[in-house]
């Protein structure tokens, strides 16, 4: 005869402890929230850009005027921004979120994120937006069309590409810290 099969006390103890552990873990789990999805990481980059870009003083009405962050297209990135942007102050300026639905609205932003959903309109927007707008995109030819910063997916991470000519044209100084982690790409000056 083979040895009898019985779960035994050991297994029962193990199961009880296992369940207790998971109940503890699950209770905590139900109250937690975030995860690093692609829109969330992109939102985090956009907020970071406000820290590492310098606008000419005439880009703001007053010394404490807010930095306007506009989103064209993608709702997911703006949803992520919405969750975290309230009350955030960067370099003494509040940062506010706006939807940019027209060229005029786009031109009133300091940072403008143009999502892939707006790919068709990207060239038009980039051509027509005047003023000190740091344009950020996520499509392969964004810099060639005159955008300033491109968020590109490399393997499973997001990498940065910067078009310095376009930044100069918009009179925006990008800090060396940002440039040191980005790839410089020659693109069309806006």
């Amino acid at each position: 005869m083979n040895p009898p099969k019985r779960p035994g006390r050991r297994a029962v103890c193990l199961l009880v402890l296992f369940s207790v552990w998971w109940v503890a873990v699950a209770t905590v789990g139900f109250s937690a929230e975030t995860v690093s999805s692609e829109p969330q990481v992109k939102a985090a980059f956009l907020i970071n850009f406000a820290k590492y870009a310098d606008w000419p003083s005439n880009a703001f009405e007053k010394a404490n005027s807010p930095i306007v962050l506009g989103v064209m297209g993608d709702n997911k990135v703006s949803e992520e921004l919405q969750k975290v942007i309230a009350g955030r102050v960067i370099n003494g300026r509040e940062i506010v979120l706006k939807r940019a639905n027209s060229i005029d609205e786009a031109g009133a932003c300091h940072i403008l994120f143009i999502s892939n959903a707006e790919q068709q309109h990207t060239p038009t927007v980039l051509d027509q937006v005047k003023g000190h707008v740091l344009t950020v995109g996520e499509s392969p030819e964004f810099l060639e069309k005159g955008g300033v910063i491109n968020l590109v997916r490399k393997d499973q991470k997001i990498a940065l590409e910067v078009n310095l000519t376009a930044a100069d044209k918009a009179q925006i100084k990008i800090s060396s810290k940002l440039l040191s982690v980005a790839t410089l790409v020659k693109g069309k000056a806006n």
Partner: protein
Amino acid sequence: MKLTSSKSKRLGEKAKGYRKSYKKRIWAALTVLSVGAVWNTQAASTATNSVIELSLEDLLNVKVTSVSKKEEKLNDAAAAVYVLGNEEIHKSGATTVAEALRLVPGLQVAAIDANSWAVSSRGFNSQFANKLLVMIDGRTIYSPIFSGVYWDVEQLLLDDVDRIEVIRGPGATVWGANAVNGVINILSKSARDTQGSLLYGGGGNVHLVMGGARYGGKIGEDTYYRMYGTYQLNDDFLQSNKARNNDSWDLQKFGFRVDSYTKREGHLTWQADAQGGKLSDESGSTFGFNTLGRWTQTLSERSNYEVQAFYDHIYRNDFLAEVILDTADITFQHSFGVGEKNDVIWGVGYRYTDTQIGKINNPAISILDHNVPLNLASMFIQDEYKIVPDKLFFTLGTKVEHNDFTGVEVQPSGRLTFKPAENQTVWGSVSRAVRTPSEFEGRNFFSFITAAPVPGPSGGIFLPTVFGNPNVKSEELMAYELGYRIQPNHRLSIDVATFYNDYSRIISEPTKIFIPGFPFGTLAMHPENSLTAESYGGELAVTYAATEDWKISGSYSLLILNAHGNANLDAENFELNAPTHSVVLRSSYDITKQVTVNGQLRYVDNVNGIQAYVTADLGLSYRPTPNVEISVVGQNLLDDRHPEQISQLGALTTEVPRGFYGRITWKF
């Protein structure tokens, strides 16, 4: 091919000595884990919105997941599915595919000796676990000669494996025969995602030497390639009396993969691998190569087609015989929408397998036919009907196959999915699946002496010998499954699957005929469809990202199997080969940006002749720069060595030793 009952009794007695020390270790380990849970309660409440707070440099290192259509579908799947991702495999410290599979909830993975494993899902585990279909990039590695998998030739470069998808339960409607108790699909990354160089090297006391290299580059604008090579040398396992088992083995594998994407959503893949190695000190060598091409064309959001062909050649000279196996396979599949509510997928396929037996290395075997061709033609069709869009789906499908032994096999399934909310899925299914007899069972080309000579009823000595039986039919399964999945939030997911499996026509050798002879008579045994069985149980899997830095997961599997029939010993063996309870707990914690600690604890209940055991693996990895990783891994740490599975070939049971290895990985 069975172990005699007296041998398993001896092993059972020996294993009893392990019991006491295990008990202490379980308690110690669980105390640590419980303390962890309490600590976790405090840690989690402080971690919100942490991605937003990251610096620029850190953001560049955050991995992002964009759930693709296919992956989304997997989460909604009306089946017990688990996906083991690249990072999980990497963190586990696994050096072989079989080791990585130990992490999957509900899979039974047991090392028989240094180079063979028993891998199964929901029972019937053995070296010749014949109810599980295993594929690499769509190429089946299930061997028709003995209905199982040669795990030792699959020494993949694990860094280039994208994921391992595991379906527990029948997947026969889409995948076909032998996907009875489960399907394992190992998928490598596209060459587009493995650009650049990777080098790794290391070694330890069990895995003596390991090394590999990969280079990925671009041929044209949208065409990518990679080339790789791996080598691993593994030491002998020990027998229970500490004697070396002489089963050390090595394997080298080389290959390439090319992926080309067209502007119009077409994707061409061409890949090839070749491998060679020494099977063990005394019993021979293996060599093989394969090549596969696949063309996928997306026609619209709901429509695409795929054409795939592969050729696989395996030469294996082991202690039984010299076997050459050639497989050629071509498949076509097409999916499209019909109206708003129906999505149809259908396909056809043809496979030709040629088995040639060369010289015989074991006097127990005699060959009646050296060349065994096998034709397999198949088609499947499946419709997903949206009863209520986004809420309630019904999927009905069937596979129809024709093979040379058993003729036509029909394998239908019906599945219902209900999504009460976006983050919850309730599913149920009823399916039929078959396991076609192995060539050994179903054709009379081969006989095998399975045990020591026995005295006959009226004197004389007889050798128990198994012969093939061309009249044997496929084993049959009716499976009933019910499952529930919930993601209360992005950090936590819970997956419960339950099943009731009803097996009939299970093959065993109940009838014994004494044929007199000199000096020995033959005790002839023929495979027959003589057993039935039912099994039930379930699996619970929970994964939880406690904080950005700490991820834990755990799974529990319950399996109860009852087999009935004339051949009592076989029925009993089937019952005994199912561990009633098994548990896997895992934790991965990034102490700093550079240092990660990974641990896992596994409990496996008694199986045939082997006492229950608990064991743990622990790994520490250090990344001085983002491109370099130095890791130290301890495997099977809780004892000097323990047995996991008895050999079906009557060999002495060997034990899995505690192992350590170090490894350096460099990407550039």
